[in-house]
């Protein structure tokens, strides 16, 4: 009798122990390759490793490489301008800045891994730029670049001010770097600014290329908050909601506060005719990423689209797939973007309703991405226990 009971206890303990061990192991062991099912059902597309590999190798890395090309070119032109500020070098710098800033729109959405860890965006694209702060830094000849208060004093928006906003004509701008009393200090600031941007980007890029992050990224296939898919999607949705919808349209158009337009809060404010291009580029990058579009070939591969389709995510009342619904909303937004003229600063003043309409259409996409997509994928934003109720 007693022996039998002991067996029961031992049995139970062994079970609990074994499961506890499994539980611990299963949660953390992410390096184990995904097993191949014998008879797959949509396995090819619900395989997150394949999706992450396509995203890393065919989207993120080539996008960073493309940006690096444009960015490096801008650094060369910036050095040339610093060495010999005149109208020619200024024009060349300005064009290279336009190219790099536009290309930046295609990488800002990758808020994952090294870029997230180092908050790359904060050093590249926080606007409206802080003119008073920049002038104080110029005068002082020094100043920290790594504190939150310094974010609006650097990056592309600061360069925008320095090469487009210092005077009404190119002659006037060049004069600020040649004949003005603080010309040398201004050149020094320009150099510090580009050096800072270069060092930030190089760190992130190196982590991805030679630092091994690419492998970490594709092997962290779990869907919990600490792994690639969740971080990637969270960053992607955040970028769309806060930095495209709000930053580029919601805030300047006044849709988000009091209905008071804020023409000085558009992106690329001093360049004037670039803001719509930047917004369109960022929006298209969002669409292409969603569809898993290979940056090099333009072909669609494993991405959010195929993953959602493999899960069978659809509107159960109509049978329309979630992917089609989201893409349709992206299209509607594109149509509205095409209505606008290049200078958004003018548009929010004279064509406010049309800009607000972009915001409204984007808002609908935000809900779909943030709620319908994440709920279908079972991605959460919480990091504590949750019994699902």
């Amino acid at each position, binding site marked *: *009798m*007693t022996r039998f*009971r*002991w067996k*029961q*206890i031992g*049995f*139970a303990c062994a*079970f609990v122990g074994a*499961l*506890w061990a*499994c*539980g611990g192991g*299963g949660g953390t062991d992410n390096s*184990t390759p*995904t*097993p191949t*099912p*014998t008879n797959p*059902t949509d*396995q090819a597309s*619900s*395989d*997150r490793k394949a999706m992450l590999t396509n995203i890393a190798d065919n989207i993120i890395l080539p996008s960073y490489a493309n940006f690096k090309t444009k960015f490096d070119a801008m650094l060369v032109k910036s050095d040339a301008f610093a060495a010999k500020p005149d109208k020619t070098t200024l024009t060349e710098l300005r064009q290279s800045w336009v190219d790099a800033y536009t290309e930046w729109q295609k990488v800002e959405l990758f808020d994952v891994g090294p870029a997230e860890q180092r908050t790359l965006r904060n050093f590249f694209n926080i606007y409206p730029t802080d003119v008073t702060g920049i002038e104080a830094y110029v005068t002082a000849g020094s100043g920290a670049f790594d504190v939150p208060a310094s974010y609006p004093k650097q990056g592309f928006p600061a360069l925008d001010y320095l090469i487009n906003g210092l005077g009404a004509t190119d002659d006037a701008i060049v004069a600020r770097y040649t004949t003005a009393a603080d010309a040398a200090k201004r050149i020094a600031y320009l150099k510090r600014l580009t050096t800072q941007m270069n060092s930030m980007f190089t760190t992130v890029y190196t982590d991805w290329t030679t630092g091994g992050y690419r492998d970490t990224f594709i092997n962290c296939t*779990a*869907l*919990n908050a600490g792994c690639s898919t969740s971080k990637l999607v969270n960053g992607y949705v955040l970028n769309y909601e806060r930095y495209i919808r709000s930053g580029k349209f*919601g805030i300047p158009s006044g*849709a*988000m*506060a*009091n*209905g008071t337009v804020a023409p000085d809060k558009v992106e690329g404010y001093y360049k004037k005719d670039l803001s719509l291009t930047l917004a369109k580029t960022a929006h298209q990058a969002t669409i292409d990423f969603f569809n898993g579009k290979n940056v090099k070939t333009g072909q669609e591969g494993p991405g959010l689209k195929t993953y959602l389709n493999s*899960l069978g*995510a659809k*509107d*159960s*009342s109509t049978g329309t797939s979630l992917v089609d*619904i989201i893409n349709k909303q992206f299209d509607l937004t594109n149509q509205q973007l095409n209505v606008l003229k290049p200078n958004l600063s003018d548009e929010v003043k004279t064509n406010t309703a049309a800009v607000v309409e972009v915001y409204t259409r984007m*808002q609908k996409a*935000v*809900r779909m991405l*943030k*709620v*319908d997509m*994440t*709920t*279908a*994928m*079972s991605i*959460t*934003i*919480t*990091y*504590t*226990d*949750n*019994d*699902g*109720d």
Partner: protein
Amino acid sequence: MRNYLRKTTSAAPLAVFRILFGLMLFGSIVRFWSKGWIDELYVKPRYFFPFYGFEFVHALGQNTYLLFAVCGLSALLVALGLFYRVAIIGLFVSFTYIELIDKSTYLNHYYFTSMVGLLLIFLPAHAYFSADAYRRRTLLADRIPAWCIDSLKLFVALLYFFAGLAKLNSDWLFHALPLRIWLPAHNDIPMVGFLFNYHWIPYVFSWFGCLYDLSIPFLLLNRRTRPWAYVAVVIFHGLTALLFPIGMFPYIMIVTALIFFSADFHQIIIDQIGVWFSASTRFMRPYRGYTYQPLVTKAILISFAVFFTIQLLFPFRYLLYPGELFWTEQGYRFSWRVMLMEKAGYAQFTVKDNSGNRIIVNNTEFLTPLQEKMMSTQPDMMLQYAHLLRDYYARHGFRSPQVYVDSYVALNGRMGRPLIDPNVDLANEQESFQHKAWITSFNDTIYGF
């Protein structure tokens, strides 16, 4: 009935339960503390969501650590059976206080723990094999009234049964929701992950889970099925621990289910621990019965009858509200509805007044990510948040602010829809147990409980 109430039983199962319950809770507190969740959930947030009727419960700032210390220490004392009554009251009060601070952290197993703590206050769990009984031999007893243990069994049985009943709905049984959404997320775990790519697997899990919940109390009660039922308990909760981020819950249930085992089973455990401590025979086998004073017995029995009547009825209170329970969540909490919904939401609040002030609220300025996530799908929390915004903006230049919410909620994979009427000024709505007419109606039907 009278005969049943006079029946006595071995005190060993209750003693083992006390020890394991105390240790489990102590472990939970240590785990919670070490993960930094005290700071994250109770110190850092600027605002909290108290339960209706418990608005007097406040976060204690840095003193929250003290509260957890009291809770952990009480749990340890309960396990030891030292100063038991004080310790179990301390445990119940501190634990319940913590859980009442913020709705965002509500979990069914916290409620379960609280209620077990409440029951234990009135049970002689320290009569046998405790430090108290060791110090005070007049307390020592190895027989206790049978209803003491049966009331715990009944409570555990209720939990399982109601959890099973709640699964008898069309989403769970016929659409395998939400498991159909959750399981593919784990298709990369070793050995079994590939299974989750098959469309029929979530159905197997759903039906097994439902049958398990409904039948396990009876299978545990029956002596012959008990060992296999316990294996099922371990496998079931082990699997949930593996697949879902539900923390200590599976382990608490695995340990709790031991209460169904025979007195002999528990005696063997106690005897073994007794051997380690070289306990005397007089301490291990006092051959004494624990008796309450007649009046006390009567008072406790009446209170327990009330308690269990409430427990039996409370999960059905949702029937008093119109609308789909999963959508409105009126009567959803405190009803053992576990893992039933994949619900996600997005809520954007607009505050305005008649003098032209208008702002779209950035929720992150007020709430933590967890709070925002919970608020976005639960109407009562949205109302609390709306009032918080009303009061905040009234202090910041708005005149009688109005608060509107643009909400969007997806339930069990359905496309998102507004949960709250966007034209209702929530600043003017009051919390109550009445139906909230400003919750939109659900555009689908979920059949069943």
